[in-house]
């Protein structure tokens, strides 16, 4: 386990350096100068030169690269052009809300996926199978931002069940702890539901196929011949079997969920990485977007590392079948 983990960690580290290099390359190899693109359009030539010097844009590329990487590793991401405060602060504040949203949505996503998959497998080939499959396909095809707006219109504006956006109510700080948590959950409900509803079908299809496969195996036949009910066969015997690969799938889903979160954050004004990036675009605040892009990739790398390690713990077969290649 340990040598594997060491190798896997080393690989992740290498990946991070590569990711950092790519972000740097994209920004610096894009046509023109980062300043041309807009932030400093109104700034006169002299101030512009000062800004160039401050950002180190006149140095040779290699020097800039080394300086940038070492500064990043020290946690110094520069100054936000728009907010005039450290990028690390701007982005750091956004990580928590994004993780909260993504993880809540993922739990919901998993619950929906398992329910849908079991329903489809239990009513295989019958009306409910096709109904659940069809509904899932439509949900999968909806634009996330539109689904969010429609849920907002219905549940926040018309019915008034949930707040229309934001992380918490204005007076949240004054509330007792329990009420504050409830307030947070109420704010979380619609964004998390939007994200989960738009994505669960991918996992559901996967689990359904795995369930079908498991139900055809001999241990199910043996259990069935012992008189185990079909419902129990499905939930207790086949399902655990079908869920194991989901650990790996979780690692693969993370980029999608983080990407989906961007869409949802914009619609619901959720103060996460996505909204920070989109706001930064309006102001051409590229240091912020560099940081959010890199940070999102770090989260994905960490997630896939966790998923791999989790899978090795959960399934001894992987550990026994020779060296795991990263």
């Amino acid at each position: 386990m340990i040598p594997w983990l060491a190798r896997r960690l080393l690989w992740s580290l290498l990946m991070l350096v590569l990711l950092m290099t790519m972000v740097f390359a994209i920004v610096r190899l894009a046509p023109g100068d980062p300043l041309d693109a807009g932030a400093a359009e109104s700034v006169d030539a002299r101030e512009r030169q000062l800004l160039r010097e401050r950002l180190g844009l006149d140095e040779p590329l290699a020097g800039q690269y080394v300086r940038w990487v070492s500064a990043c590793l020290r946690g110094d991401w520069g100054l936000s052009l728009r907010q005039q405060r450290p990028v690390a602060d701007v982005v750091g504040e956004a990580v928590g809300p994004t993780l909260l949203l993504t993880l809540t949505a993922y739990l919901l996503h998993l619950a929906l996926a398992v329910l849908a998959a079991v329903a489809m497998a239990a009513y295989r080939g019958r009306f409910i199978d096709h109904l659940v499959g069809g509904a899932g396909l439509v949900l999968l095809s909806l634009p996330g931002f539109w689904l969010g707006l429609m849920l907002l219109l219905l549940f926040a504006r018309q019915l008034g069940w949930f707040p229309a956006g934001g992380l918490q109510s204005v007076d949240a700080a004054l509330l007792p702890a329990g009420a504050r948590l409830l307030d947070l959950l109420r704010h979380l409900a619609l964004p998390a539901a939007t994200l989960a509803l738009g994505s669960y079908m991918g996992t559901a299809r996967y689990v359904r196929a795995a369930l079908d496969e498991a139900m055809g195996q001999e241990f199910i036949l043996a259990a069935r011949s012992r008189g185990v009910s079909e419902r129990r066969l499905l939930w207790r015997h086949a399902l655990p079997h079908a869920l194991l690969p989901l650990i790996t799938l979780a690692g693969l889903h993370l980029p999608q969920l983080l990407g989906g979160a961007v869409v949802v954050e914009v619609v619901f004004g959720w103060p996460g990485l996505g909204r920070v990036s989109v706001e930064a675009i309006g102001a051409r605040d590229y240091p912020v977007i560099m940081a959010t892009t890199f940070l999102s990739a770090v989260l994905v790398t960490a997630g896939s590392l966790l998923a791999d390690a989790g899978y090795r713990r959960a399934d001894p077969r992987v550990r026994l079948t020779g060296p795991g290649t990263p």
Partner: protein
Amino acid sequence: MSDEVTTTAATAAPPAFLRLNEGTNALRAGLGILLLVAVVALLAPWLAPGDPSALGPAADRLLPPSAAHPLGTDMLGRDALARLVHGSRVSLLAGWLSALVAIVLGTGVGLVAGTGPRWLDRLLMTFTDACLSFPRIFLILLLVSLTRPSLTLTMLVIGLTGWMGVARLVRAETLSLREREYVAAARGLGLSPWRVGTRHVLPSLWPTVIVATALRVGSAILTESFLSFLGLGAQEPTVSWGAMIQSGRPVLLEAWWLTAFPGLALALTVVGCNLLGDGLRGRLDPRRMKAARHE
């Protein structure tokens, strides 16, 4: 597959039009939907004559759906149906072109990685994995933030950030094809790797590539609509469904129809792509074709 057909027949089968999960029904429904959208896009100037962006009479602002304006009017008094009809062009164009960029790039990288020397394979796949570590939308936002928004740029960027999945799929398929006897025979004859790749491996990859294309188009349409929604895609006076949703957003409460219908149009088009992809997969799945060959 065949045993699924028998179980379907044995139990109470739902009406045929509901069995959309896979196979021929999905294929037909998907093709039908996409044909409909394509016809609307092609005939837009005749279906909705006149400039869809020209201002309407002031009295016509924010009218709810009626006989004269089936989908209502927007805050500038323009007919929403006419704009919806014209908007189909951007969605289809952006979807197909950016999917094409992604498919060509992905197939190229996957094919080279799968047939080329081992070091090249490792290099290309490491790069692919690195690109996959970025949630796509962040990469797109970063690229778009460095330039001025335009539809061409948006399509290019969506394509350039969407090839990785295709590359991995094509590489995996290529690796398994490499072990086939006919490919080994072609190599044994001393054909160049390029010729083996393009003439002997590529034709067998078409099913994989075609299915991937259909699904990619759907996802590209969604991505384009989101960028247009953010104001980073098609710019006025070009009409796009994403931009229509954006302009309806401030008046969501008073004029829900401005937001609702473009979203439904997007959903319908993407459902068409996904049905087509699923249906084609049911028909062309390489694994099933492989199984058939072994029988």
